[in-house]
């Protein structure tokens, strides 16, 4: 064989090798992996209605499992040190127990990590200010947020395509044919599916009481009657206007009197107003679920209250005036004993049975 022939042969081998490597890298064919989508056996809390429809992202068993992997995998962060679960831990009702979370660069944000329990029921936007319309669009944000995971989606997509396991998980979840079809949108859909299984409330004493399976003691009963204002002999605790049954949350946004403001721009954190630009929306924030509130301290969007007693003190003593102050929190008149009865009722909203679902924990 001449030198020239040998050179051609080596070149041909290199080309074939490079092509093969590429196939295993970004372009690899995944069609040999079975794609057999099946429904995820979702059980919604028994006092809740059906989840909002999401025809563009039907939940499947493998979709949820992929979302679960992504949620707990630090591959989504720039230095592989943090995942979604760094700030949303199951044992803290998917908060992190801090006023402000620290991102991969050591920076802290200005808002508290929100509980993800029952977020599937939010229909008017995600985050404290509703800046993402859906769970699917919400899941895209933290990856590129410099004070959170601080990576870029093109880089994350590249990492996922080259990963030994993820191409198979994406194939099983979405039926993609090749690694190159792994995209941020599919990753976000999977994480949204995972977040939709983070449900709680159906095994709370409140729901059991509704179903006649248990009875409240007098303090709990009084607390509930004040919460829902059903007893004229007791003051209205007004809680139920924003934390509405059955989810004990609201898709809406409220100014609950944390800060005084003569005009919209006076609010230190503009909240919903920064999203809509509507003056009355400044200083308004989402009302998260009260199920398992005992795990979500510190409270409010900025974690300013360490205990539930401090929260109740705020509503009974320290509400600040603003033109868009929710009128229901402006007129609260509870004494200490009544306040404690409301807290007794709030304790009936504890339901940690969600921790018995193995699918909500890290697969790693």
């Amino acid at each position, binding site marked *: 064989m001449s030198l020239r022939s040998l050179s051609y042969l080596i070149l041909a081998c290199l080309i074939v090798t490079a092509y093969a490597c590429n196939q295993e890298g970004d372009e690899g064919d995944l069609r040999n992996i079975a794609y057999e989508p099946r429904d995820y056996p979702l059980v919604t809390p028994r006092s809740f209605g059906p989840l909002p*429809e999401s025809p563009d992202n039907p939940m499947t068993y493998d979709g949820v499992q992929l979302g679960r992997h992504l949620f707990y995998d630090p591959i989504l962060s720039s230095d592989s040190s943090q995942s979604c679960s760094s700030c949303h831990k199951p044992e803290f009702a998917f908060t992190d127990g801090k006023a402000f979370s620290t991102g991969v660069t050591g920076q802290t944000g200005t808002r508290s990590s929100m509980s993800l329990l029952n977020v599937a029921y939010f229909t008017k936007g995600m985050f404290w200010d509703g800046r993402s319309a859906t769970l699917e669009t919400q899941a895209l944000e933290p990856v590129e947020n410099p004070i959170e995971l601080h990576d870029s989606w093109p880089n994350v997509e590249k990492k996922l395509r080259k990963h030994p396991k993820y191409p198979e998980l994406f194939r099983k979840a979405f039926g993609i044919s090749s690694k190159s079809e792994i995209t941020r949108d599919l990753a976000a859909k999977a994480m949204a599916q995972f977040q939709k299984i983070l449900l709680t409330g159906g095994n709370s004493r409140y729901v059991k009481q509704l179903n006649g399976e248990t009875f409240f003691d007098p303090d709990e009963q009084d607390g509930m009657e004040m919460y829902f204002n059903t007893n004229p002999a007791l003051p*209205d605790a007004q809680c139920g206007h924003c934390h509405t049954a059955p989810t004990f949350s609201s898709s809406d946004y409220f100014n609950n009197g944390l800060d005084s403001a003569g005009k919209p721009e006076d609010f230190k954190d503009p909240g919903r107003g920064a999203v809509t630009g509507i003056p009355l929306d400044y200083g308004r924030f989402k009302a998260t679920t009260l199920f398992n509130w005992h795990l979500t301290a510190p409270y409010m969007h900025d974690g300013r209250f360490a205990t539930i007693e401090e929260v109740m003190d705020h509503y009974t003593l320290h509400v600040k005036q603003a*033109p868009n102050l929710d*009128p229901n929190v402006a007129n609260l008149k509870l004494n200490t004993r009544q306040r404690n009865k409301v807290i007794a009722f709030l304790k009936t909203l504890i339901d940690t049975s969600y921790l018995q679902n193995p699918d909500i924990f890290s697969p790693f």
Partner: protein
Amino acid sequence: MKQGWGFVFLLSWMVWGCSEPDDSSRLDLNVFGQYAGQPLVMGEKYPYFDGSEILFTKSEFFLSEVAVRNEQGEWINLSDVNFVNLQNHHFNTENAQKGLRLGLGRIPEGKYSSIRFGIGVPARINSKSPKDFSASSALGQGDHYWAGWDSYIFSKTEGLLSDGMQLANFAYHSGFDSIYVVKEYPISLNVTEGNNVSLKLILDHRKFFGATNEFVDIYQDPIIHDGGDFMTQFMSRFNSALTIQ
């Protein structure tokens, strides 16, 4: 090549030709929140009866069982339950002047002399609760239901009243089957084939609170949240504050 284009043209013509002709008309209700005849802008101040200034932060209500009566005297049902949310629309003068469009569905060709609907939801709906509906719909959201009443909240009117000395954050909510009334309003509507039509629903919020000689003392009663006379009277005025054009 020409044959190819001819085929595409033929296919397009077939697809177009096979489409169901949509020549029915659509009826819209344009909802105009007002205060004393002026466009109501959320968060803007208006003079109250007693010289105070009033501003509104929330105005929303259910509008149900919409039907129109034709020349033969038959009632044609149009839509079952609608939800009107003015606070997310009337946040500037332009929108308040334009009105909030509420689609009521298709209406057959003909002449119509009346429209009827109720503010709130009928008893057959009110016997249910959000768990019976998808959270995507207004009926599936806890915000519009008061568990303490076992009732949907038919309307919410919220805001702030101040005279510089006193201040009252008010919230007037309504519910209960006894409050729900279907009322009939005269209209003159001529629907011709394929032409969409609309009606104006004007809701003057000043009238919710009474008239110059007798009006609600908001400072005294900033919250109504029970099913008593106050709520009944408030909703009676609410219905009277409503005109159709």
